[in-house]
């Protein structure tokens, strides 16, 4: 076997190994997202069961949540899902500057959503006196679910910040960018969970 042929085989094996490892990583990451779905689903169904098993909803003394600000804040998060999707698309097509721009926009929108949630918490706790422990099922459900989701958004923002640093350091290449794919999948997941939470807390 010539040196050139040997070199070709080594590269071919490395590429094949990368594809196999990537496939396993993808499966593992999807299993993680499914397990996270189950976690949210258990809390969501518990909330819906409790909501429909008692007297009217919301409980006496608690006002219905105002949808106007929540709709605006939701659009901020959904917009970040769109920018993240285009960040990945631009990376795939080798448009690095556009990729970084969309990725940074995603981080800014994610932080904006967290700021909006903090604003809403502030209003509910100090303005309406709705608290996690002192407002019965409503307060416990609302703050647990939205808090858990907010924590996921925070983790996502940290993850995307790491992606920015890794991308700037040249960790990813045109053919090897699973970290960016995983980040996009995670961010879409966070968006989708919010579609459900927005619907059950503000729309029904």
């Amino acid at each position: 076997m010539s040196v050139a042929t040997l070199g070709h085989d080594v590269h071919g094996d490395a590429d094949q190994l990368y594809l196999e490892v990537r496939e396993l990583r993808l499966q593992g990451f999807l299993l993680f997202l499914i397990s996270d779905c189950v976690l949210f689903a258990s809390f969501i169904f518990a909330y819906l069961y409790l909501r429909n098993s008692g007297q009217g909803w919301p409980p006496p003394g608690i006002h219905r949540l105002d949808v106007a600000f929540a709709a605006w804040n939701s659009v901020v998060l959904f917009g970040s899902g769109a920018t993240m999707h285009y960040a990945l698309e631009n990376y795939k097509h080798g448009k690095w500057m556009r990729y970084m721009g969309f990725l940074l926009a995603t981080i800014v929108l994610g932080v904006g959503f967290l700021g909006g949630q903090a604003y809403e918490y502030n209003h509910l706790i100090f303005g309406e006196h709705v608290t996690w422990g002192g407002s019965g099922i409503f307060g416990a459900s609302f703050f647990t679910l939205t808090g858990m989701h907010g924590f996921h958004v925070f983790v996502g923002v940290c993850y995307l910040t790491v992606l920015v640093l890794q991308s700037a350091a040249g960790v990813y290449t045109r053919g090897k960018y699973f970290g960016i794919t995983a980040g996009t999948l995670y961010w879409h997941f966070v968006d989708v969970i919010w579609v459900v939470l927005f619907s059950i807390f503000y729309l029904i």
Partner: protein
Amino acid sequence: MNPVIIERLGAVIGGIVVGIVAFYALYKDWNATGVENQVFKLMLVLLGIGAILALLAGLNVIGFTPPAKGV
């Protein structure tokens, strides 16, 4: 201007933009194959539905806004 109107306007405009972007991305990726692309397509559909819900909430078709300014 009333803050509620600004919030609703933002929700309507943002909902339209995000909805169009999500469904256009779905249209472009429609023929893509592979597990991750199927997941992306599913999530883009749900993202588009979320944008429509936010749009309808902004238009006051669904949801609730108290008479006095709340959050």
